[in-house]
């Protein structure tokens, strides 16, 4: 296809993880980016656009991969994009300080026979480390022009743009040199290429047959599974056998051996090492941070600091947002024509502003949390954290990378579930997602804060609180072990992880990463939460009770017109009446009725219809449990008058029941926002359903055991002094 005929010139950015690819992407596109997901996998698909003179360019940031084999979702995605994506030019970003490993991908990209530019990034870093690189030699060796850049400082970006422009306007751009793999192997490749040629599907014609031949020889699962190549599996196997016996090497690593051989030769010629200082600094840090004894304590301190940063710093903007939404509700209230469309007024204020606002106030927390994570990821510490925690997590069938998302679960399950994206193994990732909501999140805290002081003397309070968190962790890890030995059973996948050299991330990249996550949170979780809030509002409101046990409206009106009372006395007398009326309304509503039905099975765990009904509210957001319970106990503003509610509760329930309420709230169905994000991140309603059912079963069973055993033994019948 003629480049000039097309409206946009398509570029793919390819490179290893940690090579600074995303920084280059950000430099090229600025803020004109689009982040989405590849269908079916949770690999982010980032595209962006920019112009060079009269040329419109579309750039795709491929996931960072070490190889183009198809052994991970990232590799499959990168491979498909390159093969089927109509790419005009590949920008292969290479970490200059680690060229030997980075060029391994280059040898494979070269096989695609697309024009390619070698972007030697972080040359400042390489120079500092004492590497003198002869870029001309690399250019000649791979048959691709070289551009030197420092992505974080924006150096070399103009050169890169000019290079792109020149290649786009070149009618016959240079094609990369295909590596040679030694006489016997080349012979095998030639033979297979001839056999592949007639079998190629028309849509793959852009990619040379030789590429597929190499993949067949490599026994690449994706290519070998393609129906059109079924007849070639046998010959490919035979060639592998021949090569293996001749060269005495493993057939699986056959091509890798050759490629690294080729690269070692090129690097020996093109790179001179004068000293190796920077690397040593990185090593010194690692000697401390990943130390057998110091590693864990250091990690825990880092995590503690991260939490402090997120929740302490996040508190202020959270308060501002709360005030903002309250103000908004007041404003709507004031502007709304009195008495008109009363239902819609309440829907807007209580349902939409209350519901969506309740979720939006967590945005500062989420932003800060992701800022901290982006920072730790950018420096390279995250890989060390996974390394340090791996031993502990391995006891539960998970590996180190699962630890951070689970820890984040103490804050909020939504960002925690989103943070599982760093886990490569699909089985481990799904297991982690499914158990994360057991971690006692911040929204459960108001429940504990209300119940614990009401039922437990001061000296027990901290212990009870700790027990709640502890139970959450134990159940989460227990379920992980269960899942890994049943549903997600299988040989542990091989675990190799690169610990990249420490670096200072750019502020821009941290901000962009943080923003991407925030937008995702707002878009997807937001729409679902809006719907859920409206539904909850409706079931809390309808059907509307018209006749009450007492004539509340009349009584309220009477008090309001009673001139003998002061303003203060009037509102003090009206409040309980309003509360009682709301309680009756709620009891009559769908939520109240569902609560009464739920109370039948829930009796066995010690709950009455009020607690059961409040649990429905907790499904929207855990902290709504308190508000809903407040309403049911006829208290106008439950949080403001916590002590009144606490007295009421103490009269109605035993400490055992109270403990069971907390236990159930901890373990039961996660909130709507979590369900939404789990659905999105697992891409499966079945797994989301499994989580909902599983949590209900776990919560019911455990609470049942605790309640029944406690009752039989007579524990927690009276207030613990």
């Amino acid at each position, binding site marked *: 296809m003629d480049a000039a005929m097309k409206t946009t010139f398509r570029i793919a950015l390819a490179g290893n993880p940690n090579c600074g690819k995303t920084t280059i992407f950000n430099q090229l596109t600025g803020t004109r980016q689009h982040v989405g997901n590849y269908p079916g996998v949770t690999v982010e698909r980032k595209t962006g656009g920019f112009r060079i003179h009269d040329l419109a360019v579309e750039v795709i940031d491929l996931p960072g991969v*070490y*190889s183009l*084999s198809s*052994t991970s979702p990232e590799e499959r995605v990168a491979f498909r994009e390159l093969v089927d994506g109509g790419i005009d030019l590949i920008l292969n970003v290479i*970490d200059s*300080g*680690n*060229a*030997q*490993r980075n060029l*391994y991908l280059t040898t494979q990209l070269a096989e695609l026979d697309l024009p390619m530019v070698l972007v030697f990034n972080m040359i400042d870093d390489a120079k500092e480390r004492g590497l003198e690189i002869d870029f001309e030699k690399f250019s000649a060796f791979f048959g691709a022009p070289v551009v030197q850049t420092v992505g974080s400082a924006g150096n070399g970006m103009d050169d890169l743009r000019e290079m792109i422009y020149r290649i786009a306007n070149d009618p016959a751009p240079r094609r990369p040199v295909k590596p040679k793999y*030694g*006489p*016997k192997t080349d012979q095998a490749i030639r033979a297979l290429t001839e056999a592949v040629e007639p079998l190629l599907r028309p849509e793959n014609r852009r990619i040379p047959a030789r590429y597929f031949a190499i993949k067949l020889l490599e026994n690449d699962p994706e290519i070998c599974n393609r129906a059109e190549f079924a007849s070639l599996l046998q010959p490919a196997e035979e060639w592998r056998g021949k090569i293996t016996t*001749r*060269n*005495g*090497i*493993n057939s*699986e*690593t056959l091509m*890798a*051996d050759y490629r*690294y*051989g080729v690269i*070692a030769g090129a690097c020996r010629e093109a790179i001179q090492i004068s000293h190796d200082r920077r*690397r040593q600094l990185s*090593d010194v840090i*690692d*000697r401390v941070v*990943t*130390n*057998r*004894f110091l*590693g*864990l304590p250091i990690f825990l301190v880092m995590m503690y600091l991260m939490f402090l940063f997120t929740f302490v710093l996040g508190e202020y903007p959270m308060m501002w947002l709360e005030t903002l939404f309250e103000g908004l509700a007041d404003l709507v209230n004031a502007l709304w024509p009195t008495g008109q469309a009363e239902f819609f007024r309440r829907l807007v204020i209580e349902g939409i502003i209350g519901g969506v606002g309740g979720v939006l106030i967590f945005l500062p927390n989420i932003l800060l949390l992701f800022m901290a994570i982006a920072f730790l990821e950018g420096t390279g510490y995250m*890989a060390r954290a996974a*390394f*340090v925690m*791996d*031993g*502990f997590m*391995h006891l539960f069938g998970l590996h*180190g990378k699962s630890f951070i998302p689970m820890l984040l679960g103490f804050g909020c399950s939504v960002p925690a579930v989103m943070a599982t994206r760093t886990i490569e193994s699909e089985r481990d990732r799904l297991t982690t997602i499914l158990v994360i909501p057991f971690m006692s999140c911040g929204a459960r805290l108001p429940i504990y804060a209300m119940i614990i002081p009401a039922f437990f003397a001061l000296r027990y309070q901290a212990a009870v609180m700790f027990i709640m968190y502890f139970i959450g962790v134990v159940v989460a890890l227990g379920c992980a072990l269960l899942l890994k030995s049943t549903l997600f059973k299988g*040989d542990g*996948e*091989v*675990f*190799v*992880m*690169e*610990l*990249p*050299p420490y670096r200072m991330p750019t502020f821009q990249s941290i901000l962009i990463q943080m923003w991407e996550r925030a937008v995702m949170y707002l878009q997807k979780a937001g729409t679902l939460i809006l719907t859920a809030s409206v539904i909850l509002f409706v079931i809390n409101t309808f059907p509307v009770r018209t006749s009450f046990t007492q004539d509340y409206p009349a009584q309220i009106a009477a008090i309001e017109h009673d001139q003998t009372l002061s303003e203060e006395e009037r509102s003090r007398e009206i409040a309980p009446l309003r509360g009682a009326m709301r309680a009756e309304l709620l009891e009559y509503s769908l939520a109240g009725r569902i609560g009464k039905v739920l109370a039948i099975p829930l009796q066995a765990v010690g709950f009455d219809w009020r607690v059961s009904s409040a649990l429905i509210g907790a499904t929207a957001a855990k902290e709504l449990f308190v508000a809903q319970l407040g309403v049911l106990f006829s208290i106008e503003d439950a949080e403001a008058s916590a002590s009144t509610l606490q007295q009421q509760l103490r009269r109605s329930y035993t400490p055992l029941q109270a403990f069971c309420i907390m236990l159930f709230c901890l373990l039961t169905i996660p909130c709507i926002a979590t369900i939404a994000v789990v659905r999105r991140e697992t891409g499966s309603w079945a797994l989301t359903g499994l989580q909902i059912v599983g949590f209900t079963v776990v919560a019911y069973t455990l609470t049942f055991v605790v309640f029944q055993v406690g009752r039989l033994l007579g524990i927690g019948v009276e207030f613990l002094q």
Partner: protein
Amino acid sequence: MSDNDLISSSLEDYLEAIAEIIERNGHAHTKDIADRLHVKMPSVTNALQALSVRGLINYQSHSPVVLTSLGAEKAAVIRHRHAVLKRFFSEILKLDSETADSAACRIEHLIGETVLSRFVVLAEAIGERDDCRELRRYLEETMPKIATSDDSSEWISLDKLPKGKSAVVMRVGENLRGVKKFADLGLVTGTLLEFEGRAPLGDLMRVKVMGSSLSLRASDARYILVKVMS
């Protein structure tokens, strides 16, 4: 043992050395010969007398050594054989030039004239004949792959490597799960690595490969055999 045709292998060395020195300097002095063969002067005098007796050289003390026509012919044969053998060892068997040279010398000394002359014909044929081209290509490809240190008793598995030690990967076991993934990250035969330490609690280990650290499980590292670097 006074066979005129057969000269001792040490005398052959002298003859060869004299021929080379004459070729380079135009004339050969006793001193040059002694230097070249790392022997003492009296030994040289002894040998020169023996060569002279056999009519291979003209030798008078205090004047340069001259080869007789018989001596020149004999020296040419010896030098040709040595060159053929050396080329065979270095180009066909792919040994480095030092090893090839010393192997050529040793073979000349060990096997008798009869076997040697036939062996030289074979070596020459493999190295030069057109119908041996396929064979040469095969050897070209196979020889470098033969591990130079076949003493695999020195190899240890990666998980046994002492901390802080460097080693070269000699073999990546077939029964290692996901060999490919290791290969993609650079763990292939011939890679230089350094064991940097273990993770707390578990069996993860940190190994420096190329520019950065890799972490892998000790249970996987068992299948990677390495040779410790001194």
